């Protein structure tokens, strides 16, 4: 079973790499789609002169801070929107409006306001992550079955207990889904922000590679995004499985 899965994974990776390799220099010019070998060479070189770590470090720092901030705000406001009728009526309309504005669209405005410094990038990522977390959190809070709350009240739970011990646990599956989606959004947000206004970071690396005609650098950027996105997502899944399993069990 496990061996079979591993075999299929290997085949999948091999086929993908194979298609890339054979199309480079045939279907696509090698100057546009470089071969895996030249990308690997570039990767080694960039690790060697530590250039890669500067870009990677800049992007990851932005993601971590922006994501954390976005999640904090998203959960707080999401809980308020879900739990308090007045807050919902006041906050929801502008949010429903904002969710149609993708983070990328805000970049020119953000650059005009904050310049090309770090604050603007944190803003973009927090916005991208925050919106996803907020809507999922609010939905989770609202999804708490009424009779579960009522049962808790009969058993002597005070308002505070009901929130902490019934509403929040009932909302966890939704909130965690939001947090996971937001993680993906953070990667998108950071790249978008860095492509337009930065002098460091994976997004910058990708954008700059076309200016200096260095296609391998662009693909190193792709490689980093794919790899680190995958790693953080898996880490997220494992952590949830370890810490939050009892909240994720089937509800029936």
């Amino acid at each position, binding site marked *: 079973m496990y061996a079979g899965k591993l075999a299929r994974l290997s085949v999948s990776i091999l086929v993908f790499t194979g298609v890339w390799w054979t199309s480079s220099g045939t279907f696509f010019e090698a100057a546009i789609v470089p071969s895996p070998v030249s990308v690997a060479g570039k990767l080694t070189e960039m690790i060697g002169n530590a250039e890669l770590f500067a870009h990677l470090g800049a992007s990851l720092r932005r993601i971590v801070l922006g994501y954390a901030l976005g999640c904090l705000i998203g959960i707080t406001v999401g809980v308020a929107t879900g739990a308090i009728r007045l807050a919902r009526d006041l906050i929801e309309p502008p949010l429903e409006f904002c969710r149609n504005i993708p983070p990328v669209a805000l970049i020119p405005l953000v650059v005009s306001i904050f310049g090309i410094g770090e604050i603007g990038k944190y803003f973009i990522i927090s916005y991208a992550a925050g919106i996803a977390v907020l809507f999922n959190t609010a939905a989770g809070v609202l999804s708490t079955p009424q009779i579960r709350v*009522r049962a808790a009240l*009969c058993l*002597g739970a005070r308002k505070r207990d009901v929130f902490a*011990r019934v509403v929040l*646990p009932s909302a966890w599956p939704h909130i965690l889904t939001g947090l996971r989606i937001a993680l993906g959004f953070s990667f998108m947000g950071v790249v978008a922000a860095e492509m337009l206004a930065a002098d460091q970071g994976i997004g910058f690396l990708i954008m700059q590679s076309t200016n200096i005609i260095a296609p391998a650098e662009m693909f190193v950027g792709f490689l980093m995004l794919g790899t680190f996105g995958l790693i953080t997502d898996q880490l997220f899944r494992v952590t949830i499985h370890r810490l939050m399993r009892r909240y994720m069990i089937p509800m029936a």
Partner: protein
Amino acid sequence: MSWRVLRLEGVGKDFDRADGGVAQVLRDVTLTVERGSFFTLLGPSGCGKSTLLNIVAGFEGATTGGVSLDDTPVTGPGTDRTVIFQDVSNALFPWMNARENVEFGPKMARLGARARQELSEKYLRLVGLDADGGKFPFELSGGMKQRIQIARALANDPDILLMDEPFAALDAITKKHLQVEFRKIWNETGKTIFYITHDIFEALLLSTHLAVMTAGPEAGIKEIFQIDLKEPRSPSNPDFAALYSRVESLIDEEVQRMRAR
């Protein structure tokens, strides 16, 4: 709290409907439930039984009249009254195992771990699930979940159990078992039971008092019976059968009236 009677006096309930109108559900319901009795409400579907139970539980306020324990008015949910819901999957806390569910009330009462454990052991044993304390609700059958809900309520030592068709979603055999077992539990614990069912047989098997409701809108109490059937109660007993058909005809009358409207 020491009280003698649960009193419903002139209870009426209107709901604002989504279309802007008003649903006049209950009118002038007056009942007295004596401490220790097993009081059952029976009535056509949609007449307002659950609404009445929610008012007694304190989840909803009455539009007119009120509920009181002796002379103390009921103003909201309280630990003296615990509801056993039919929809047990949503009523239990799915992220807590059976034991943790049962210990929820004691925990809210700030009891220590030792005392909580004693209570959960006692009541899990009472409902016959002492070996299943570590299981989560999704690992339990419908009947087992309902036992857990009963244990959870009892561990909180309420005076009154409010039960809204607790066994209606169970298969016939499980239902029969639980009815018999629950009657024993009622005997042993001496709780006051306010019970809703659709099932005349169940009502006659369990209750000391039975109220038949009229059809809604503006539903009220049609007739109240005190049930003194020979124990053990059995449908083969002629008194049982006679009472059964009497209650059945009352309900049929109401259903006819509802249809005619």
